């Protein structure tokens, strides 16, 4: 039996078997749909002409004043023995035209001429005992399809299963210089020599490569069973497996490219290689438990687990360009590295056990206690530090390993797992959670609530980067290329031959303990007014971070006013203050070779890791003010106008680091329910964000020992500021109407997104790369704006032929315009100098989808 057939087995079992018991509250992936019908079948349901209620016209409103969606039309049912059933099948022609690009085809497999199953839905019910069977299916292609089945008996049991395939197209304009795309071994074609090709040769290969589509197909299947053991006790278990298969553009460094490009430097130095990562993994999720719901007590005992497995532990790629050492040592020669390796995500397991008990108490209240313990672990086999053959690093006059060449390393001592301090990762994080919460309603106008939560993550084990074959610490950085180009930067500490090398030698455990306590009250002080107040206190106690204690206190006020019949007004305001104990700007020294015995600081001292004024944004002291105002107008029973304004202002206490992050937005939405089967709506929304940060360029090429801002290394002349501003507009219009028996629908949506990053600097030494026209003093500039604009319009008409057959004709047109300077110039080729790019980036497009479907009620 093929694998594709095997994955349908759970679904087939559900359709055929019938011997479990369950309730209806628990599901496996509770919402499944495709891009043809993101509503999961609801779009094919017409509104019930009788409305939602015999008591009131049109739809009801939510507590905030918005109209609920219409009630779906009751289906005409037929009898089959003691079962009644109804169903529909909708299928027909789907034709896409225009530009087939990634953004248009993301999460959908639109094809030029395609016969598709839009929707198959069959429902059977047996009124005598409440048994039911639901089957739903949709198939656009073998890569874009879903099938699900649910059966059960109301109040007794429920079984469900599904199969879902979904494509995720990432690029349709990729060009690979490598063979073996999709495998874990990317090799250069015969026309290129690994480690010895020229940029012109590589550019020619790239130009001649066929356009390649990169994407990932997700195939997911699941099975869920729940059952009532007694009227109070419920047991449930859900299992799902998601497999991903495909390719995606990825990194692949071979160190240095643009910085030393062109005379007097080395055109062929190292390079940048955008390789293609193979995706072949699976994730199994499982959860199950027991629940009790009595009149006074509720209990919930649950287990959840997740298991990730990757087919590959790493993938290899060949690099086309040769390496050349920086001309700082006479006679220096780079090792001839020509291949690299990228590790994949490690296999990992997750387990969590949780128990919750809830009891009703006096004052119409409830008290609840939860405890949970979990473990995240990965013990995958580790890969060797490097996959080279021969030597890596820099030789002086020759490439013979020995005392005469302290910057040259023997690959055979590093390309084996014997070069590792342990063969498997043996990493683990244990989690603990305790939670208590209470809610009291002493009188109907007053609600009190409070909770305390304790959360802890404990990292078990630390990995030491030690090579027992050589007695050295660290790892060959950049697949050995960094140390093969820059003398002394191999990433390897040797107490005898390089006792002053500063490199990472230890993993960083990030244990953290969190306590969250809050108390609040809602008081309806008049029939039409409710005030709420909540105080929240969080204490974070991380280890190995810049602060060992961070306290965040917030106070939130809410006001809901319904004094005017046609208006609901909601206002929220929150003030948050975060502070902490002493900020240690460099707590990471213990992870570096400087903490090892035998380390000898350079003559000038150990270089500082960072500037003392740096404040990382999650550790920084900050003040936040946030306000939301939402007004829902009901000018008529059948009309709603919603308006909202929001703002969030964050001020960070940081000279270096994030200084401000502000967001603001406004929305206006109008809905008119003209009749039960006729609606008209429009919306417009705007939002903006601004992120301001500052940093400082070191002035002593990484060797400076003074961490002080304004000192010799982090001189103020090297400070720079960046301001990232994002502005978005959204608008839309929707119209649905039933003309006699014919239904018509029209939708238009517009999105405009613009991002602009500008910068300023105190002096040209703040810049990492000079273009040559910088003056001696301060300067500023901006990157080109990034714009993403999408217009889409859908029009459809559904014409009934008779009581059971209807025709649906629709057209969906979408136009996208992209302006992203990251991909500027790729039209002229994907190889620039010794930089090799694979993905040409998102493209603008005009595309159309037309569908002609026959809808038959079974």
């Amino acid at each position, binding site marked *: 039996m093929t694998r594709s057939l095997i994955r349908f087995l759970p679904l087939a079992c559900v359709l055929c078997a019938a011997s479990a018991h369950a309730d209806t509250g628990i599901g496996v992936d509770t919402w499944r749909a495709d891009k043809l019908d993101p509503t999961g079948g609801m779009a094919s349901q017409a509104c019930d*002409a*009788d*409305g939602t209620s*015999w*008591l*009131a*016209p*049109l739809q009801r409103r939510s507590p905030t004043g918005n109209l609920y969606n219409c009630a779906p039309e009751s289906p005409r049912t037929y009898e089959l023995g003691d079962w009644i059933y109804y169903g529909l099948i909708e299928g027909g022609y789907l034709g896409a035209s225009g530009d087939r690009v990634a953004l248009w085809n993301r999460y959908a497999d639109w094809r030029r001429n395609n016969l598709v199953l839009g929707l198959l839905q069959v429902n059977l019910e047996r009124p005598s005992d409440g048994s039911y069977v639901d089957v739903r299916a949709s198939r656009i292609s073998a890569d874009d399809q879903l099938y699900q089945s649910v059966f059960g008996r109301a109040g007794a049991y429920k079984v469900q299963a599904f199969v879902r395939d979904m494509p995720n197209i990432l690029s349709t304009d990729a060009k690979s210089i490598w063979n073996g795309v999709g495998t874990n071994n990317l090799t250069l074609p015969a026309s290129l020599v690994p480690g010895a090709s020229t940029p012109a040769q590589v550019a020619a290969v790239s130009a001649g490569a066929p356009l390649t589509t990169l994407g990932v197909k997700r195939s997911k299947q699941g099975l869920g069973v729940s059952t009532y053991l007694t009227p109070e006790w419920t047991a449930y278990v859900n299992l799902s497996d998601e497999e991903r298969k495909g390719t995606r553009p990825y990194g692949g460094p071979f160190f240095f490219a643009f910085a030393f490009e062109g005379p007097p430097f080395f055109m062929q130095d190292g390079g940048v290689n955008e390789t293609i990562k193979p995706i072949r993994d699976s994730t199994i999720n499982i959860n199950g438990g027991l629940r009790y719901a009595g009149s006074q007590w509720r209990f919930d005992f649950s287990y959840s687990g997740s298991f990730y497995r990757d087919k590959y532990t790493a993938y290899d790629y060949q690099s086309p360009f040769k390496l050349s050492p920086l001309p700082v040592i006479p006679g220096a020669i780079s090792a001839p590295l020509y291949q690299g390796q990228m590790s994949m995500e490690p296999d990992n397991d997750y387990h969590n056990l949780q128990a919750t008990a809830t009891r009703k108490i006096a004052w119409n209240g409830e008290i609840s206690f939860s405890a949970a313990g979990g473990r995240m672990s990965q013990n995958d086999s580790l890969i060797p530090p490097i996959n080279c053959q021969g030597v890596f690093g820099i030789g002086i006059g020759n490439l013979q390993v020995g005392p005469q060449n302290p910057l040259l390393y023997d690959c055979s001592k590093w390309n084996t797992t014997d070069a590792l301090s342990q063969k498997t990762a043996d990493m683990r994080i244990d989690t603990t959670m305790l939670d208590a919460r209470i809610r009291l309603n002493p009188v109907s106008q007053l609600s009190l609530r409070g909770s305390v939560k304790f959360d802890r993550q404990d990292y078990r084990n630390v990995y030491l980067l030690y090579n027992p074959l050589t007695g050295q610490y660290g790892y060959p950085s950049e697949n050995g290329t960094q140390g093969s180009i820059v003398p002394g930067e191999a990433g390897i500490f040797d107490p005898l031959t390089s006792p002053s090398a500063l490199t990472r030698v230890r993993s960083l455990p990030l244990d953290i303990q969190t306590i969250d306590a809050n108390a609040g009250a809602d008081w309806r002080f008049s029939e039409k007014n409710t005030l709420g107040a909540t105080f929240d206190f969080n204490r974070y106690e991380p280890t190995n971070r810049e602060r060992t204690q961070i306290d965040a206190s917030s106070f939130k006020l809410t006001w809901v006013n319904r004094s005017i019949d046609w208006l609901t007004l909601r206002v929220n305001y929150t003030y948050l203050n975060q502070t902490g104990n002493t900020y240690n700007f460099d707590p990471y020294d213990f992870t570096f070779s400087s903490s090892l015995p035998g380390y000898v600081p350079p003559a000038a001292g150990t270089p500082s890791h960072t500037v003392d004024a740096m404040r990382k944004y999650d550790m920084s002291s900050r003040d936040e003010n946030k306000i939301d105002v939402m007004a829902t107008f009901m000018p008529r*029973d059948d009309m709603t106008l919603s308006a909202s304004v929001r703002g969030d202002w964050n001020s960070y206490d940081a000279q270096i680091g994030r200084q401000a992050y502000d967001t603001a937005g406004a929305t206006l939405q109008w809905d008119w329910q003209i009749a039960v089967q006729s609606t008209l709506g429009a919306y417009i929304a705007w939002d903006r964000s601004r992120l301001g940060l500052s940093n400082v360029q070191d002035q002593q090429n990484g060797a400076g020992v003074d961490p002080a801002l304004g000192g010799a290394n982090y001189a103020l002349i090297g400070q720079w500021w960046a301001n990232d501003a994002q502005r978005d507009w959204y608008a839309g219009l929707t119209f649905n109407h039933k*003309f*006699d*028996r*014919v239904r*018509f629908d*029209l939708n238009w949506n517009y999105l405009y997104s613009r991002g602009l990053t500008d910068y300023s600097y105190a002096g040209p030494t703040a810049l990492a790369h000079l273009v040559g026209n910088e003056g001696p003093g301060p300067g500023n500039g901006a990157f080109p704006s990034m714009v993403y604009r999408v217009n889409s*319009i859908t*029009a*459809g*008409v559904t014409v009934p032929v008779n009581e059971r057959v209807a025709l649906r*004709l629709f*057209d969906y*047109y979408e136009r996208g315009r992209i302006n992203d300077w990251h991909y500027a110039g790729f039209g002229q080729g994907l190889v620039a100098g010794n930089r090799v790019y694979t993905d040409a980036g998102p493209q603008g497009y005009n595309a*159309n989808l*037309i569908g002609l479907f026959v809808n038959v009620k079974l």
Partner: protein
Amino acid sequence: MNLLPNFMRLPAAMLLVLVCTQGVAANYVDLRRIEPVHGDAAAGASRAVVCVACHGPNGNAVVPTFPKLAGQRADYIYHRLVEYRNADPNAPYYVASPMPAQAQTLSDVDMRNLAAYFAAQTPTASPTITETGDEQGATLYSNGDPAKGVPPCQGCHGADANGPIITASRYLAYPMLRGQHAAYLVSRLNGYRDKQAHDSTNDFIMRGVAHMLDDGSIHAVAVWLDSLPVVDKH
């Protein structure tokens, strides 16, 4: 020359197809969004001659199977007449009733005038009361029967059974029940319970309510309502 971009041509064609279509009428009277009924009571009096043959002088029916109309809400009377006019006289629920045929002879203005006339009359107590209401009927009316899912009648018909005091349009056609003949009420409730009445949206409300009522409950609440002293609202 194309006047429309390509992507707009299909939607435009669809709109063209729909231009000549028209609305559809429901097969019941929708009372959820109605306007208050106004009529000429004096003109209604002249058209009421036929009515009083069954519904009694001034609409105070003597025969207990015929409803009292005196003092009833004009909106209820008018829309009930509309329902009769729309009804299928051969339907089981109406086959023995003269009202569908009678309503066919009335114009819309006639029905409004008749409604205004009877609403303006003063109700009198039923002369045929043989039972007094008991606690079960009063409880059902005031509190319903939560165990059976029966809502309290007073929620829609008012605490004093003179109809709801809320003036929103959808409540206008909820009838006054106070002092109504028990036999008529029993007949109507049975009609709801047997799902024979389907002439207005309010019928569908009452079908849901009566579905849970047994014979004893129907009898108890009908007798209790009949026993209530009538009130001259004028």
